């Protein structure tokens, strides 16, 4: 086909060079970590690794990951099916509420439980808090997939004699399986990276241990050794997902057959289903918000001096997060352009290399940057630039997903038509390309902003001395059991992240336009 040949167009050199620089930047934390490991030396590393504590941490991680991921998969898929495929009453409201727990950081959820029910702790508490906090990572993509899936396959199965339940099991679930797996991957990676919630719940994992080693004694070798293990697990999970995704490709129906699927009648399960989803929302959303409100109303004094007012801390949070969002979106741009418009092997490899960041917890990235700064560029240590850089690297994958999707909204064919209609290249970029990708860029910005506002771990390590963000000030107060003083900071964090959260929800919900199908 001529189209296949045409795809091999020349790669603009500036875009290529920029993409390579981005890939190098993203791989820096991993490189620093390995460099550090080399400095520590293998004998010391192995002594640090093959300890009893490593096995305990590994077991803690695995038993939590298996249960939480399974629960999130079942709850997320079930909720998505109820909202998208059944005649559930009030499903539009539920659809919005089910996503919102994503805007509440897990350490705030943990705080919500522990501050009023200290019994919620340890393994059980971790399962409860993390499942409530992470199920939207499965719910969101599965709901989108169910909305877009071709209903005729399920209908065909029905005409071939399968009952509704078997048709769901054999057809619908199979259609959405790659999506569910992708959601499960996100859940496991989030579990691997979480620090704050586990610290509050008193559940020991790699991140809490690394943080303790780092903070207590600035024990770099031990932190480094454990970081290596975390990175290794992260990369294995990533690789496993990649393999599953390649195998589980599902033939896609033509996009233009976007007939809405008929809704299943829940019958006498109607109200039990509403009740189940209602309690889910109560646990995941109502509880933390209720507790924040409770502590704010009750107020409370703290023995801890308040080093930053809510407004001051919020100012820093917004500043850092916005800067990080802008940087991450800008970094994603050249890679997305290259990957979408020049899909050759070498480019795909470059794109893949940027995925590795997904497997690196914020804690590891932050520690790697601290190591780098202390050894090579002491003057950047404790500067806001380093923190913004860490955010940008950490949240690059989020920005990339949105930017890549938006670049696909602007097929080259449109630019070519614009040129042949007599418009100069610059005018074409301003009048055609930019308006088409702008919503995606805004979404990328929001995604990163939202995540950075609620980021705790990397912030604790890299925030400049004397500066407090909402997350760090909240953390200082909860560490001191000053719940009343901490609550306003949590409220501010949630309030700031809800606006981009709602914007994002709209972006994910929008109907694909025709140009997207044609690209």
């Amino acid at each position, binding site marked *: 086909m001529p189209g296949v040949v*045409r795809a091999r167009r020349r790669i603009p050199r500036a875009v290529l060079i920029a993409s390579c620089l981005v890939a190098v930047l993203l791989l820096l934390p991993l490189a620093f970590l390995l460099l550090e490991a080399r400095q520590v030396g293998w004998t010391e590393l192995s002594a640090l690794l093959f300890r009893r504590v490593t096995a305990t941490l590994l077991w803690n991680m695995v038993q939590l990951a298996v249960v939480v991921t399974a629960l999130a998969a079942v709850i997320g898929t079930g909720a998505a099916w109820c909202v998208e495929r059944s005649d559930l009453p009030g499903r539009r409201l539920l659809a919005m509420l089910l996503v919102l727990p994503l805007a509440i950081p897990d350490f705030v959820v943990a705080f919500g439980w522990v501050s009023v029910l200290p019994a919620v702790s340890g393994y059980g508490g971790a399962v409860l808090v993390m499942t409530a906090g992470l199920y939207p990572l499965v719910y969101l993509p599965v709901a989108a997939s169910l909305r877009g899936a071709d209903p005729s396959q399920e209908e065909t199965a029905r005409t071939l004699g399968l009952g509704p339940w078997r048709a769901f099991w054999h057809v619908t679930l199979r259609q959405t399986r790659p999506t569910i797996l992708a959601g499960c991957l996100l859940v496991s990676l989030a579990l691997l990276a979480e620090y704050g919630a586990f610290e509050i719940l008193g559940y020991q994992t790699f991140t809490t241990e690394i943080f303790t080693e780092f903070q207590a004694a600035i024990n770099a070798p031990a932190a480094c050794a454990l970081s290596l293990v975390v990175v290794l697990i992260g990369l294995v999970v990533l690789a496993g997902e990649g393999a599953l995704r390649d195998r589980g490709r599902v033939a896609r129906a033509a996009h233009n057959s976007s007939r809405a699927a008929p809704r299943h009648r829940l019958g006498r399960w109607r109200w039990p289903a509403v009740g189940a989803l209602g309690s889910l929302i109560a646990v995941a959303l109502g509880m933390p918000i209720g507790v924040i409100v409770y502590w704010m109303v009750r107020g409370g004094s703290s023995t801890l001096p308040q080093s930053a007012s809510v407004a001051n801390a919020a100012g820093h949070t917004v500043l850092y997060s916005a800067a990080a969002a802008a940087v991450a979106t800008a970094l994603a741009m050249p890679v997305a352009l290259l990957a979408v418009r020049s899909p050759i092997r070498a480019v795909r490899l470059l794109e893949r290399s940027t995925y590795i960041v997904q497997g690196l917890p914020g804690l590891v990235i932050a520690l790697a940057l601290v190591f780098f700064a202390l050894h090579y560029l002491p003057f950047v240590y404790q500067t806001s630039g380093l923190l913004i850089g860490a955010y940008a690297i950490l949240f690059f994958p989020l920005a990339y997903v949105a930017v890549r999707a938006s670049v696909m909204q602007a097929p080259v064919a*449109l630019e070519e038509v614009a*040129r042949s*209609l*007599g418009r100069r290249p610059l005018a074409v970029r301003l009048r055609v390309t930019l308006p088409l990708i702008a919503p995606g860029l805004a979404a990328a910005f929001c995604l990163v902003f939202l995540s950075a506002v609620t980021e705790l771990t990397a912030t604790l390590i890299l925030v400049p001395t004397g500066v407090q963000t909402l997350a760090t000030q909240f953390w200082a107060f909860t560490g001191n059991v000053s719940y009343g003083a901490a609550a306003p900071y949590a409220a501010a964090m949630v309030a700031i992240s809800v606006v981009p959260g709602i914007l994002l929800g709209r972006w994910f919900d929008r109907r694909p336009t025709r140009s997207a199908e044609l690209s």
Partner: protein
Amino acid sequence: MTAITITGLHKAFRDTAVLRGLDLEIERGSLAAILGPSGSGKTTLLRVIAGLDRADRGQVSLAGEVVDNGRHFVRPERRRVGYVPQEASLFPHLTVEQNVGFGITRPARRGARVSGLLEMVGLGGLGGRYPHELSGGQQQRVALARALAIDPQLLLLDEPFSALDPSLRASVREEVRGILAATGITTLLVTHDQEEALSVADQVAVLRDGRVAQFGTPQQLYSDPIDVEMARFLGDANLVDGTVAGPVVQTPLGALMVRPSSRWAVPLSGAAVVLVRPEQIAISSAFGAGAPGRVLHSEFHGHDSVIEVASETPLLRGVIRVRIQGSAKLEPDARVTLSASGEAQAWPMPSA
């Protein structure tokens, strides 16, 4: 005066040579079709003419001005060439009106030009809609209006009807042809559908191996294909054995006149392959002069019918297709006699 002159055009992508020394000349004001199978380089040719791809070698001139000769290159926005890509490619963020007015200056957009063009393509009143609110045929017509708005010296249409439903295709095709005839703009249309090329275009260039294998009016191409392959490519073809003797060729279907245009190609006597189009053959249920056969089945097309007949004489191999007016009252297995008349194209029998 020619609108397009292309000489020795070469274009390769990496190791794949797509165009290999293509020559083409299109008269001003004509509607020409580039016909070829998928991958024959049709789209590449259009893109080089539009300036979206550069020629490796050779020269492209538009209305006498060299626009690409491998060194000198006129950028696409300077060529005044209206380009309608395969998928219409309307700007999804702009309304129909804004799409049509995209290539013209602001004062011109305010005038009646845009609405006039929309009227012309039969979409008056839809200017405020967005592309996704239009049907495929409507989108195609907006794309055409958008290209016409810049008052192009040349219009390029890349498979403009392939994305449409078959039922819609013929009517949109006719409308577009009417619009183009009204504007008088030289148009080059790319298609892989020989029926489309023959029915729409004044002139057809058949692309093969990166060159123009044959160029002529649809009638010329249909009745005087340069070789057997071309005959098969351009419509139903019965290829039968015959013996040439002077201006006449004897076939099992009867004696036919060798077309004057092909007389140079065949010797004055000897074995030949003869092209007999289905409509040249008469079918009768009576026993008589001609080739005996047995009806396999008939396809009814409304205006005509095509009957497939299995030959029952060893002189005539295989299945013969016959086209008759209206419907045929012939049951399968009916015995019939076939006879051909008129002129026919003949080629020397390949020695094998």
